[in-house]
């Protein structure tokens, strides 16, 4: 026993105090994400929250097609793997027949904002009481770095080799701004996971969204998370995190887009 502060005693285990532990719901295995990728961070945040809210026994997640297609191998909770773009439809099916369960989707930008845009908009417009976690890294990572609906103007990808040309390839789409306009959305926020500070804020936002669902508060919570893709962006992890600060948040400003009490 050591006395850290007067009146408080704690046990010292081995040589070091444990300041952080892997959540028990995060499988202790090697994952397939590239070094420095934000997916792993968001996975951890999600499982910390599921444990903190004590909802492991009633949470069902829906994985997308994209880099996180195998999320159920890392998140030790019940999950369903959806067809490309259909995660929110799958989540609707689950939540409607089991309204007491906690249901969330985990989707990338190609899944949610290209092939699944219809499902995204209509699920939120119906105000399905689910949480949507939207990982926006501006690229198709799994298929090898093609242009995504959220790729920034001028950004070089394997299908925009001269840089995204807005005239021929369209504009990057701002989903948080868009879905905040839908009457069915309840809480809409854009966060990032490129620094310790933004990770802490992102966790708070995700936890708030889950709490709303646990409390049965109406509507869909939409948490957009600006993430990096060092491999797809052809940057080091550090450069990719700096690029988010320098360029990405200019086009995709962080912050709340709809709060339950305040509206848009």
């Amino acid at each position, binding site marked *: 026993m050591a006395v850290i502060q007067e009146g408080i005693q704690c046990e010292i285990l081995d040589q070091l105090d444990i300041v952080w532990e892997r959540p028990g719901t995060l499988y202790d295995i090697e994952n397939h994400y590239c070094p420095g990728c934000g997916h792993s961070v968001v996975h951890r945040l999600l499982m910390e929250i599921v444990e903190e809210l004590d909802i492991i026994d009633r949470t069902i997640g829906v994985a997308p097609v994209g880099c996180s297609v195998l999320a159920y191998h890392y998140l030790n909770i019940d999950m*369903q793997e959806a067809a490309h773009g259909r995660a929110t439809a799958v989540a609707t099916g689950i939540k409607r027949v089991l309204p007491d369960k906690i249901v969330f989707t985990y989707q990338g930008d190609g899944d949610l904002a290209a092939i699944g845009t219809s499902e995204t908009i209509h699920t939120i417009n119906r105000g399905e009481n689910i949480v949507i976690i939207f990982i926006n890294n501006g690229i198709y990572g799994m298929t090898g770095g093609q242009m995504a609906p959220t790729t920034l103007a001028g950004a070089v990808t394997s299908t925009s080799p001269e840089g995204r040309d807005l005239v021929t390839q369209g504009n990057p789409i701002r989903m948080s701004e868009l879905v905040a306009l839908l009457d069915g959305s309840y809480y809409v926020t854009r966060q990032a996971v490129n620094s310790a500070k933004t990770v802490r804020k992102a966790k708070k936002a995700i936890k708030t969204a889950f709490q709303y669902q646990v409390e049965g508060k109406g509507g869909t919570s939409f948490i957009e998370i600006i993430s990096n893709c060092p491999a797809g962006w052809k940057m080091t992890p550090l450069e990719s995190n700096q690029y988010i600060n320098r360029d990405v948040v200019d086009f995709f400003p962080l912050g709340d887009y709809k709060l339950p009490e305040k509206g848009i």
Partner: protein
Amino acid sequence: MGKKLLMKGNEALAEAAIRAGLKGYFGYPITPQSELLEYLANELPKRGGAFVQAESEVAAINMVYGAAGTGERAMTSTSSPGFSLMQEGISYIACAELPCLLVNVVRGGPGLGTIQPSQGDYFQAVKGGGHGDYKMIVLAPNSVQEMADFVYLGMDLADLYRNPVCILADGALGQMMESVEFPEYNIEDHKVDHSSWTTRGRLNGRDQHYITSLYLDPEKMERINQGLQKKYQIIKEKEVHFETTETEDADYAIIAFGLTSRSALKALELARAQGLKIGLLRPQTLFPFPVTAIQELARQVKGLLVVEMNAGQMVEDVRLAVNGETPVEFYGRMGGMIPQPEDILEEITKLINVSTDQMGKDS
């Protein structure tokens, strides 16, 4: 059995689904199945189920996937163009082995086609439709009564085999009114324990359950396929349903399913009145197909006439079963046209004349 009611086929099917314990319906309006959607919109929420009008058939089938993955009874219904949109989702459902009921009230195609009845989606329903090696169990009703009966059968088979079951109806069966009786059905007697695989949260700290159709390791993916094929083989052995009419002494026989079998039955009566010994075999399951029954019939008769509301789809399966044992002729109408009994009779007469001429030449 309860009392007799006069109902449209679509409504009888919807009512049967509620009585069979439907917990989630997900659908999109399309003629000629919209009464099904409307009936469930009115009735299902009052009677313990969730009704969702989806934004598309693509969304609807994926909602079914989600709901079926919880082990609750789930279904959708649509008509041909909508069923085409659902094919990707059905392939996922088949691979993930999720029990559910899918109704296709077929209309004439291809393309936007017509809203009149057709059997042009036989191949799509029986041969797969979506990508990969999979099978739905396909039930083909020919009356409003069977539109109801096959819902109970279909939901039970879906649960028993963890497989999508398709009711392949057509626009006329959906729209026409006939008397129907709903059988006594207690869902508790038909419940299958799905607790070993359903996703409902890790209750009492049990191990994780997940539902997927993704197996990147080809050896594993082949094992999944082998498991599916083994299941389909058992279904082929155990779940064949068909009906025969006056085949015992038949010299020739008609093979027809669904609405077409009603015209064929009338043609049979006309033929018998002329002293022609005609029989009728009606597959009630299209997968599994009544191969053995057709083989036995082929050995008995001098010729078979297959009648369909398409360009000739089931006839290919009949020819595979018959394997040259007896001549197999085909008569079909397309684009929403229904074969008339008189026309079928004429085709039978042709078949008899051709085969009699042939026998004359042979002897």
